[in-house]
């Protein structure tokens, strides 16, 4: 049990006073961005990124990852109390969470959500603890061809399992790659795709893109519908909290199933949003009380919440051990890793043991801190929602502008950020997924390098991608995932179209709405 020893060592790094303080700050900021519509985990984390440049990498990643946990929890608070999902991944929580809160059981709904979320996160962290170093060890033997195959598999799984329209996903991915290629080519040193703008030689920073796509874009979508925050009571009854958590083990099948779905979707980059919807859909089909879903069922809260957090947590596994982030927020964190001078991927487990195990240990502690803080601060953040949106919106615009500027003190970045805002709005409106775009911007260069290195090794023959069993399996699995939507469509054509009920179509559109 090598891992447990390393983990204990990690705890000695994570559980120190400065790091605990960072966790509290991170979680509180995370809940804040999670609660505010228009600010989400990806751009919250990228806003904080420039401020971490002077920190130790361990401290910085603890701050950022705790912000992520906080944001995941904060999104559920508004879903349940206001029927407004603060995060795309907590949309499925509104289906049963809000009805339960409206029926006079807000504490039960919140405690159930947080309890199952903590369980999902715990499963995710345990998975990372035992699997990450093993995956990294396997990956140490990878050559460029294997790496490219893994990247290819990751991108293909967005197309096959992301839930968006496949061709739109492909276009989003390719645009991300093209944006990643802007600037100086890392292999040949030549300048590419600057479109005649000299300042673009430095490339397009992913933080600028995230700020626009997620920040301004989401704000424009949010301002479109003038929502009124009609909150149900946000008082917390502490005895009911413990009773609700005590009732959770009765739903252990739902908990385990949702955690498994979440972990799977987090590791293969499907992301938390897709995971929570998939888990909710499956729970409704298999639960004995499936008919009552949508009216405030306990399992209707457990399923999306557990899967959401399991996916959010396990998205860090491929990021740490392979250098492939499993969600948009993980992509931003990975960009941070590269800025701090670390090289995400299997070598982290050899060179940066303190960093990796400090982070993993902090995930255990951070989630406990997050549950405690979110329960304590529900009334405070619920009050925040009563501030009119017309006041919050310009403040978020200013935050995004300053955030984009401070990345590299460039005015061009601010202008590009606004441009990305329009693109983000259009893409959200028309269900183009945004997560693959961000992912491609962050790891596009690495994927390209892997491809070109393998081409050099094989002297231009594509045969290198079928040279051994491992790489062949990866490539074939990737191609299969790419073709999956096509196969499903063909199968659909041959079968008689089944009559669909109204309920499923509304859920399908709700799901479509939040595909990012």
């Amino acid at each position, binding site marked *: 049990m090598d891992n447990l020893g390393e983990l204990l060592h990690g705890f000695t790094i994570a559980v120190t006073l400065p790091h605990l303080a960072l966790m509290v700050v991170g979680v509180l900021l995370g809940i804040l961005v999670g609660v505010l519509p228009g600010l989400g985990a990806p751009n919250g984390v990228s806003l904080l990124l420039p401020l971490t440049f002077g920190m130790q990498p361990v401290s910085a990643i603890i701050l950022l990852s705790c912000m992520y946990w906080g944001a995941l929890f904060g999104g559920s608070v508004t879903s349940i109390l206001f029927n407004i999902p603060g995060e795309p991944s907590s949309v499925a929580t509104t289906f049963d969470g809000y009805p339960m809160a409206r029926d006079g059981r807000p504490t039960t709904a919140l405690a159930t959500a947080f309890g199952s979320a903590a369980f999902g996160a715990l499963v995710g962290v345990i998975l990372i603890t035992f699997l990450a170093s093993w995956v990294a060890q396997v990956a140490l033997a990878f050559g460029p061809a294997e790496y490219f195959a893994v990247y290819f598999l990751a991108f293909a799984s967005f197309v096959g399992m992301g839930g968006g329209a496949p061709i739109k996903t492909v276009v989003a991915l*390719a645009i991300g790659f093209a944006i990643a*290629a802007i600037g100086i080519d890392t292999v*040949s040193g030549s300048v590419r795709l600057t479109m005649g703008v000299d300042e673009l030689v430095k490339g397009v920073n992913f933080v600028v893109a995230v700020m626009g796509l997620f920040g301004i874009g989401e704000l424009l979508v949010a301002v479109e519908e003038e929502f009124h925050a009609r909150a149900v009571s946000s008082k917390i009854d502490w005895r009911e909290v413990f009773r609700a958590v005590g009732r959770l083990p009765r739903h252990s099948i739902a908990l385990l199933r949702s955690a498994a779905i979440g972990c799977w979707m987090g590791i293969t980059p499907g992301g938390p949003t897709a995971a929570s919807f998939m888990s909710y859909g499956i729970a409704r089909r298999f639960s004995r009380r499936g008919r009552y879903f949508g009216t405030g069922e306990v399992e209707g809260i457990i399923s999306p919440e557990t899967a959401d957090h399991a996916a959010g947590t396990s998205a860090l596994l491929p990021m740490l051990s392979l250098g492939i982030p499993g969600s948009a927020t993980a992509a931003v964190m990975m960009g941070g890793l590269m800025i701090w001078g670390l090289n995400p991927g299997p070598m982290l487990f050899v060179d940066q043991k303190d960093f990796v195990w400090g982070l993993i240990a902090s995930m255990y502690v951070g989630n406990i801190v997050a549950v405690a803080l979110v329960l304590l601060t529900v009334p405070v953040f619920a009050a925040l929602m009563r501030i009119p949106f017309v006041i919050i919106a*310009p403040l978020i615009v*200013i935050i995004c*502008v*300053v955030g984009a500027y401070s990345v590299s003190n460039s005015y061009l970045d601010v202008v590009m950020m606004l441009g990305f805002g329009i693109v983000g709005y259009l893409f959200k409106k028309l269900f183009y997924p945004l997560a693959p775009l961000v992912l491609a911007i962050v790891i596009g260069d690495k994927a390209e390098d892997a491809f070109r290195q393998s081409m050099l090794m094989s002297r231009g023959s594509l045969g290198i991608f079928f040279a051994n069993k491992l790489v062949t399996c990866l490539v074939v699995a990737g191609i299969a995932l790419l073709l999956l939507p096509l196969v499903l469509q063909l199968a659909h054509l041959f079968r008689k179209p089944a009559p669909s009920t109204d309920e499923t179509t509304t859920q399908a559109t709700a799901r479509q709405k939040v595909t990012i």
Partner: protein
Amino acid sequence: MISRRALELATAVLTGGFGVAVVVQSLDNGIGWSSAGVDSGTFPFLTGIIIVVGSLYNLVRGMLPVATLAHVPIAITPIELRRIAGLFVPAAIFVAAIPLAGMYVASALYVFAVLAIPRHQSVPRALAMAAATALALYVVFERMFQVSLPHGALAAAFGY
């Protein structure tokens, strides 16, 4: 009023245009195989082609009256469009004003304008919020994190 179809078409044209630009630009870098391995334009060239082909597909899909588009004929209603413009136009003016007025003055003016002009807040309260915003930015960035935000051409003219 903007229909879903128009929006689909506009977006497909936008992405397709970007794809064409990528293809044209990457030809300058050379595509294909040379003595140094894969030329630096090859990868962007391929992504550009994928963008163009995908955009064409989306364009055609957007034009055909497909069932999925049928239930949302209208993408943006006039009221929604006005709300979006109400947020975006001031934001764009704010960004345009930064080089001249500097981040602090521009953001204060921006907050004041969006709160006081549509009468969401009274003038004194809007003034107070504008001042608080600029002050908070100054304290957080210039003092706490030592990040210098642009002071603007006007401030430079006065010797700051």
